[in-house]
């Protein structure tokens, strides 16, 4: 499958919730970028990645415009999933399709112009790296848990959609193994935008978009300046991970940690 070559995606400003123009000139996303989007709930983080997913042309609530390689996006990448360079995993952790997991992935392969063959099996195997309870091909999509659905959608984005840009809305939320997801995302070398409240995910990104009241209010590029903080947060996160897994396994944490 041939995607149109994406050099960059540009987001042009819209308006904040109070109608004032957003205080930035443009946001540029290039291949290999990792960007986190932070801000309080309701500040417009999901709306920002949604604008990118639908290639907003001042036709979303934010009034933003999204350009591909500096120009209005060509119709075929907006409308034909087989040419769409973006995969988004939204916060919705329920799938409404009345299909079995294998059928769902098979139909998604068809929509993306892929031969399902091995892809379905590989996708389920990858999803099972991220979730505690294994997904099987014959399971109904509607019967999967939130974490299983999220795991399957991430694996689907990497192997079925197989797009150069991935948008992830709060991966830390569904109880999946986020460290394994992060490792796989790095391995696949995609531009990734994380909407996140997780300090570790935020600090791992090269750039941090800060949002308030529906608007992008700042874009931070820490360079190496946060290296010390990242080290400390990584240690805290690893410790919390161990504690979380002990609790999940049914242990009583007596006598301190």
């Amino acid at each position, binding site marked *: 499958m041939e995607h149109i070559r994406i050099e960059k995606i540009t987001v042009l400003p819209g308006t904040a919730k109070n109608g004032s123009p957003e205080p930035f000139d443009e946001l540029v996303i290039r291949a290999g970028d990792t960007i986190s989007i932070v801000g309080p709930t309701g500040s417009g983080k999901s709306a920002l990645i949604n604008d990118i997913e639908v290639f907003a042309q001042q036709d*979303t609530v934010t009034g933003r415009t999204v350009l591909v390689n500096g120009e209005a996006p060509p119709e075929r990448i907006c*409308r034909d999933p087989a040419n769409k360079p973006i995969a*988004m995993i939204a916060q*919705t952790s329920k799938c409404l*399709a009345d*299909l079995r997991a294998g059928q769902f992935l098979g*139909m*998604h392969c068809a929509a993306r112009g892929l031969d399902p063959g091995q892809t379905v099996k590989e996708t389920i195997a990858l999803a099972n790296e991220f979730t505690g309870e294994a997904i099987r091909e014959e399971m109904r999509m509607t019967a999967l848990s939130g974490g299983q659905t999220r795991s399957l*959608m991430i694996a689907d984005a990497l192997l*079925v959609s197989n797009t150069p840009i991935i948008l992830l809305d709060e991966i830390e939320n569904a109880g999946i193994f986020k460290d394994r997801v992060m490792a796989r995302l790095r391995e696949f070398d995609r531009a990734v935008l994380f909407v996140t409240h997780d300090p570790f995910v935020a600090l791992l990104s090269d750039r941090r978009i800060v949002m308030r009241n529906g608007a992008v209010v700042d874009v931070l590029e820490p360079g190496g300046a946060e290296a010390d903080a990242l080290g400390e947060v990584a240690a805290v996160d690893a410790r919390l991970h161990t504690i979380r897994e002990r609790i999940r396994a049914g242990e009583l944490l007596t006598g301190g940690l």
Partner: protein
Amino acid sequence: MRLLIVAGPPSAGKTAVVRQLLRQFAGRCRAAYLKIDVVQAFEDEELAAEFGIPARKVYSGDLCPDHTGIMVLADALAWAAEEQADLLIVESAGLCLRCTPYTTQSLGIVVLPAISGTNAPLKMAPMIAFADVAVVTKTDLVSQAEKEVFREAIRRVTPGIDLIETNAVEGTGLRYLFRAVEACPAIDDPASIVLRGAPPLGVCTICAGKKEIGWRHHFGVVRTLEAADEFYRGD
């Protein structure tokens, strides 16, 4: 005058799509709107108040709503012409998914919610297969992968359909629908308008396959736009 016929299951977002059309074409077109429903409808009053356009409704009562639409369409075209409209939007009740209310010399738009089951397009196959455009609404409520799978389900009914995905409340992505409406030719001969497909066989002349629009061409249980609330047995 251009004719748009909007069909789709109940609560699919047909009126939300109509609102976006009226918003887009306000000032450029004089629109008129007809809602066909069974026992209750409010869309005509809402749209008349919101956009200041001539709008009305017709209740089908005991008659099939899509059949009612066919019966009254010739009258409705005359009414819209009297109102000096250059765009008539007819919205179906959305109950009978077997019927295809689309006619020749119109743009047929089927509205389907992305939250439908994967087999829903097959169940409504005739309503989709005879449409020019499928507008998939509520895409903000499903994942991108589901949206793409649902799109594939529609394409299995009719591979070549013009498929437009939207959050109709916001109007996202509807630029492609606006373009299709602009490209739709005006009616050139109202008297020659006929249904595109044959509705299911039944007990009335329309069920039996007579495609002419307007009650004058039918017999048995017929209905006019003006006397829509009672049975009228023809001349």
